[in-house]
């Protein structure tokens, strides 16, 4: 949950204009400075036009404020088509006289300079536009187009005049530009001209695109100096403040069944605590997804929505695979109880996955979230980033009292270090490990509860069998105990490794 700072008395002197852009009004404590011009900087493709358009459209639909959009780069037809995918019906707003769009084209080939001039033509056009719809919001997108054909010095002094003029017109304006001619650090134009400067960034690192928004300046208001990651999807822009999630976590003593009766038995006969975090780790193909889906099935059957985030197998594959063990997921999807989030892990970085997932959580309000597997997301980025992101995500879920289950693929055998574990095992409340073992000359699997905070869990190693009748955890009989000892040894090694991975100081004991 994001805490919105209460406005201090001085801040209330500066009224603000709500943008309606998810997250943005939070990080600015109310939106853009009202009746003042804001400069929105960013390179091509950074999202300036979309943000400006969202500001205008939201002004019409949410605040009853008509708007003007002066487009210097695209013509109005292109603009209308481009934003249709966001669900904006610009033609409707134009017809209802709430929106006025005009293309301001610069045909530099035809221009000869013969003496002094100013931009009054533009002023007249903007003025006409504002009067036509009685606009309260204005966008000029983007000023750079003018720099190609006109004298730069004239332009700069005219822009200063323009900003003052816009203030007098009592409109909240967004003026977009690329970093470059209009606003270079050397000229420092924005310093005394605009009350608010925002920069949009679209970085590509390791072939992953990251969008960030930064409030460079916001006169008269405290603002975070952070860069905030944001997304552009079919609903528009969503900004997420990287604020510390409130650690006001309620602790529940309610339990939720794992969906596997015998597993519940190993967990003090009750299952998992509501709002807790659960980790299932194991080598590839050991049945972690099966356990997760059995849990999901049970959750949905008890009429609690569940969100399954798949990072390896596509949802259809998961559904098909689970069918073969008698777990039928289709009816749950149809009823809306089970939703899938599926994304190829390398498309965005981990942070943005969490942002997208949070969005879905806000929409669907699930009681349980499953991430299968979490290790796929961790191939990029330094380890400490991952750890803090995960911690924040888990904190967020705890605050919302959402139970979360992670599966993690661990590589190779017991002796190797498992960097992909990332110390999650020390962070979660409940940890189960699945292993391939050889029992009586037969390859099979074992499951063991490594830890379960706050409850008396079984320390048994059980045989983990998946058949078309579902999942079973069979106690391993005495005569197989020789192999069992070997299994226990390897489990112990895993325990120790996990502890070493997870702690930065002296070794903690495996059981919290």
């Amino acid at each position, binding site marked *: 949950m994001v805490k919105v700072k209460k406005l201090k008395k001085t801040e209330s002197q500066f009224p603000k204009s709500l943008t309606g852009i998810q997250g943005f009004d939070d990080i600015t404590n109310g939106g853009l400075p009202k009746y003042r011009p804001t400069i929105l900087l960013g390179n091509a493709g950074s999202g300036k036009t979309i943000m400006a358009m969202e500001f205008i459209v939201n002004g019409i639909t949410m605040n009853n404020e008509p708007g003007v959009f002066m487009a210097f780069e695209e013509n109005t037809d292109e603009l209308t088509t481009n934003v249709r995918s966001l669900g904006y019906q610009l033609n409707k707003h134009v017809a209802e006289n709430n929106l006025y769009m*005009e293309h*301001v*084209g*610069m*045909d530099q080939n*035809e*221009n*000869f*300079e*013969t*003496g*002094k*001039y*100013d*931009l*009054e*033509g*533009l002023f*007249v*056009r903007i*003025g*006409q536009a504002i009067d036509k719809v009685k606009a309260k919001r204005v966008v000029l997108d983007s000023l750079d187009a*003018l720099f190609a054909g*006109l004298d730069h010095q004239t332009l700069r002094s005219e822009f200063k005049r323009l900003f003052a003029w816009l203030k007098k017109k009592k409109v909240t304006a967004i003026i977009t530009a690329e970093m470059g001619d209009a606003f270079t650090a050397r000229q420092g134009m924005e310093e005394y001209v605009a009350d608010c400067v925002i920069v949009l960034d679209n970085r590509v690192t390791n072939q992953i695109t990251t969008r960030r928004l930064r409030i460079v300046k916001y006169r008269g208001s405290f603002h975070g100096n952070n860069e905030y990651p944001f997304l552009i999807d079919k609903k528009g822009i969503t900004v997420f403040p990287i604020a510390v999630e409130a650690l006001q976590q309620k602790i529940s003593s309610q339990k939720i069944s794992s969906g596997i009766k015998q597993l519940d038995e190993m967990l003090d006969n009750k299952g998992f605590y509501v709002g807790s975090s659960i980790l299932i780790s194991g080598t590839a193909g050991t049945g972690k997804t099966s356990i997760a889906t059995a849990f999901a099935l049970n959750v949905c059957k008890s009429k609690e929505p569940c969100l399954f985030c798949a990072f390896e197998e596509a949802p259809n594959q998961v559904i098909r695979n689970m069918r073969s063990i008698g777990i039928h997921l289709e009816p749950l999807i149809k009823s809306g109880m089970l939703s899938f989030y599926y994304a190829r892990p390398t498309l965005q970085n981990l942070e943005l996955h969490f942002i997208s997932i949070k969005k879905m959580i806000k929409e669907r309000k699930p009681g349980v979230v499953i991430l299968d597997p979490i290790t796929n997301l961790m191939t990029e980025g330094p380890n400490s980033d991952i750890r803090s992101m995960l911690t924040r995500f888990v904190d967020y879920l705890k605050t919302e009292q959402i139970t979360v289950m992670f599966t993690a693929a661990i590589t190779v055998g017991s002796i190797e270090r498992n960097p992909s574990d990332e110390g999650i095992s020390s962070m979660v409340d409940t940890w189960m490990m699945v292993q391939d073992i050889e029992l009586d000359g037969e390859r099979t699997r074992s499951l063991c509860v490594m830890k379960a905070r706050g409850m008396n869990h079984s320390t048994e190693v059980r045989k983990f069998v998946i058949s078309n009748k579902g999942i079973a955890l069979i106690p391993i009989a005495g005569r197989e105990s020789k192999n069992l000892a070997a299994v226990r040894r390897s489990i112990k090694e895993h325990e120790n490794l996990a502890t070493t991975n997870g702690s930065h100081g002296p070794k903690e004991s495996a059981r919290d």
Partner: protein
Amino acid sequence: MSQKIPKKTNGKAKPQGKEEENYILRLFITGILPNSARAIININAICEMYLKDRYELEIIDIYQQPSFAISEKIIAVPVLIKRFPLPEIRLIGDLSDIGSVLKGLHLIN
């Protein structure tokens, strides 16, 4: 209000040739602001001196007739638009640089 200065007719047939083509010019100004005042003076002088008897000049004040600003896509002001002879050319500024005005109007090379 727009001021139309018609070409004075003298009954004679117009001679053929590119240099003798009729010029149709439109000057867009903003009231009595200094740049506009200068532009008016300058254009009149240039027309009388270089285009005598073969020009039509219309002066439009976009404060009075703002719809022209939109229809003619005016940004910089004052601006002189040469409609004919083709190609259409825009000359922005108060026209005090006579050399570039003449170049722009293709009256000199």
